[in-house]
C-alpha cells in the first residue's frame, strides 16, 4: 500500500516526537497499567485482610520497620525545628488548649488525691505483695517518639526510638510520666510501633480506683486531642463515680498490660436504658497530642516472678 508523502511526514514527525525524551505526547497513556496497579492494590488488600495475623505481609512490615525506623530516627533529630514551627502553627488553638490542659490537670490531681485517699487502705494490703503497684523494680527503656501516624490513616500509632536491641518486645506496656500510653505492636531492631490506648483498635482491661470494679476500655478512634476512652464495666449495674481514677487491670505476667498503671479519670457515666449498662467516658491522663518521651516496661514478667513468691494470686485477671 503506497503511502502519501504527507502521511509519511506525519508519521516521521510523530515518531520523532515520541523519541524526544522531553516531549509531552510520547504515547497515549496506557489503560492497562493503571488497571493492573489497581488490581495489584486490591490483591494486596485481599491477601492482607484474609490472612489476618499470619499475613505474608507481616514480615514485609517488619522489614519496613527495620529499614525505615532508623531513617525516622535520624529525621527526628533533624526535625526538632519542626516542633517549634508546629507550636507556632498551633498557636491559635494553643491558648485554649493550654487552658483546657491546666483545667484538666487540676481535675486529674484532685481525682488522684481522692482516689489515693480511698485506695490507700486497700493498697496498703497489696503493697507488700504487689511490687508493680508501686512502680518499683520495673526495668524500663526510655524512648522518644520519632514518628506519628497521621489522622488521614485513621490510626493512633506512634514509632518510638527503642527496639529489640534495647529489649523491647511486642505487647510490652508503654507509659509516660502521666500514665498509660499503649502497648508495643511490633518491634524492629532500633524502633518499635506503639498502639495508643485511644486507637479504635485498642482494648485495655481497667479497674476503677474506688470500687475495684472491672471493665474494658476502648479507644474511640477520635484523632483530635479530645480522644476519650469508653469503658464498659463487667457488672452492668455498676455506676462509676465521675472523677474516679481508672487503672489497668493487668494480666498475669504483665503482658500486654501491666497492672496498676493509671489510665484516666471518669468524665461521665450515662446509663443506657436498653441494656441497663452504663456508658462510661474516661479522659486519659496522657496528652496524646504532645507525646515525647515514653517508657517501655521491659521486665514485667521478672518483676512479677520475684513478687509471686509472696503473692500467688496477685491482682491479675
Amino acid at each position, binding site marked *: 500500500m503506497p503511502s502519501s508523502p504527507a502521511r509519511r511526514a506525519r508519521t516521521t514527525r510523530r515518531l520523532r516526537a515520541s523519541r524526544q*525524551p*522531553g516531549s*509531552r505526547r*510520547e504515547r497515549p*497513556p*496506557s489503560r492497562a*497499567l*493503571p488497571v493492573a*496497579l*489497581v488490581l*495489584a*492494590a*486490591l490483591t*494486596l*488488600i485481599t491477601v*492482607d*485482610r484474609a490472612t489476618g495475623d499470619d*499475613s505474608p*505481609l507481616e514480615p*514485609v*512490615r517488619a522489614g*519496613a*520497620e527495620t529499614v*525505615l*525506623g532508623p*531513617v*525516622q530516627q535520624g*529525621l527526628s533529630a*533533624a*526535625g526538632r525545628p*519542626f*516542633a517549634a*514551627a*508546629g507550636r507556632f*502553627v498551633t498557636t491559635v488553638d494553643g491558648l485554649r488548649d493550654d487552658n483546657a490542659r491546666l483545667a484538666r490537670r487540676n481535675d486529674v490531681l484532685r481525682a488522684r488525691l481522692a482516689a489515693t485517699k480511698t485506695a490507700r487502705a486497700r493498697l496498703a494490703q497489696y503493697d507488700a505483695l504487689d511490687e508493680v503497684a508501686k512502680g518499683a523494680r520495673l526495668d524500663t527503656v526510655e524512648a522518644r517518639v*520519632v*514518628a*506519628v*501516624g*497521621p*489522622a*488521614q*490513616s*485513621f*490510626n*493512633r*500509632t*506512634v*514509632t518510638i526510638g527503642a527496639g529489640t536491641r534495647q529489649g523491647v518486645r511486642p505487647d510490652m506496656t508503654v507509659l509516660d510520666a502521666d500514665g498509660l500510653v499503649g502497648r508495643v*505492636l*511490633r518491634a524492629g531492631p532500633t*524502633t518499635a*510501633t506503639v498502639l495508643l490506648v485511644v486507637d*479504635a*483498635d485498642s482494648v485495655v482491661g481497667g479497674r476503677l480506683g474506688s470500687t475495684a470494679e472491672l471493665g474494658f476500655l476502648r479507644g474511640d*478512634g*477520635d*484523632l*483530635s486531642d479530645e480522644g476519650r476512652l469508653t469503658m464498659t464495666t463487667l457488672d452492668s449495674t455498676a455506676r462509676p463515680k465521675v472523677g474516679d481514677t481508672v487503672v489497668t487491670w493487668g494480666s498475669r505476667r504483665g503482658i500486654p498490660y501491666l497492672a496498676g498503671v493509671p489510665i484516666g479519670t471518669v468524665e461521665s457515666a450515662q446509663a443506657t436504658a436498653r441494656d441497663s449498662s452504663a456508658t462510661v467516658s474516661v479522659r486519659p491522663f496522657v496528652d496524646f*497530642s504532645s507525646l515525647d518521651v515514653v517508657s517501655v516496661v521491659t521486665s514485667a514478667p521478672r518483676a512479677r516472678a520475684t513478687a509471686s513468691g509472696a503473692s500467688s494470686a496477685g491482682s491479675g485477671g
Partner: protein
Amino acid sequence: MRALQVVGTFLLVVLVVCLQLGPFSHLALQGVVPDLALLVVVAAAIARGPSYASVLGFLAGLTLDLAPPVDHTTGRWALALAVVGYLAGQVRDDADHSAVAAALTVAAGSFIGTSLFALSGLLLQDPGVSVAVAVQVVPLAVLYDLALTPLVLPLALAFFARMQPLALRW
C-alpha cells in the same frame, strides 16, 4: 543511569514518607498532617503523565502502607495514590500551564486520595474509620495539602524535571 534514577526516585519516596510521618507530625492540626507523598505523586503526574505517576503513586502508597507506625490493611494507600497519580496525569496539560490549575489538581487529588483511603477503610471495616471521622479529616487534609502546595510542588517538579533528560519509560 536508568537504574540510578529508579533508585533516586525510590529514595525520594522513602524520604518523603518518613518526613511526613516524622518531623511533619509536629505540624499536625487535629492529627492531620500534610500529605507530602500525595503532593509528590501529583508533581510526578504533571511532569511525567499518568502512567509514570500511577506507578509512583502505587510505590509511594505501598511505602506509606508499610512504613512504621502506620498500621492498617496493606494496599489501601497504594490503591488511593495510584488512582490519584493516574487521574492527575489526565489533566496535566492544564495543570502544567497555570498555578491555579496545579493547585486545583492538588486539591482534587488530595480529596480523591484521602476519600478513597477512607472509603476502602469503611468497606473493609478497618477500626477507627467512620463517616463522622472522615468528614472531619478529609476537608482538613485537602486544605493542608493546598497550603503546602506552593512550597512542595515546585521542589518536586524541579526534581522530576532534573530526571527528565533521561526519562524512564514505564
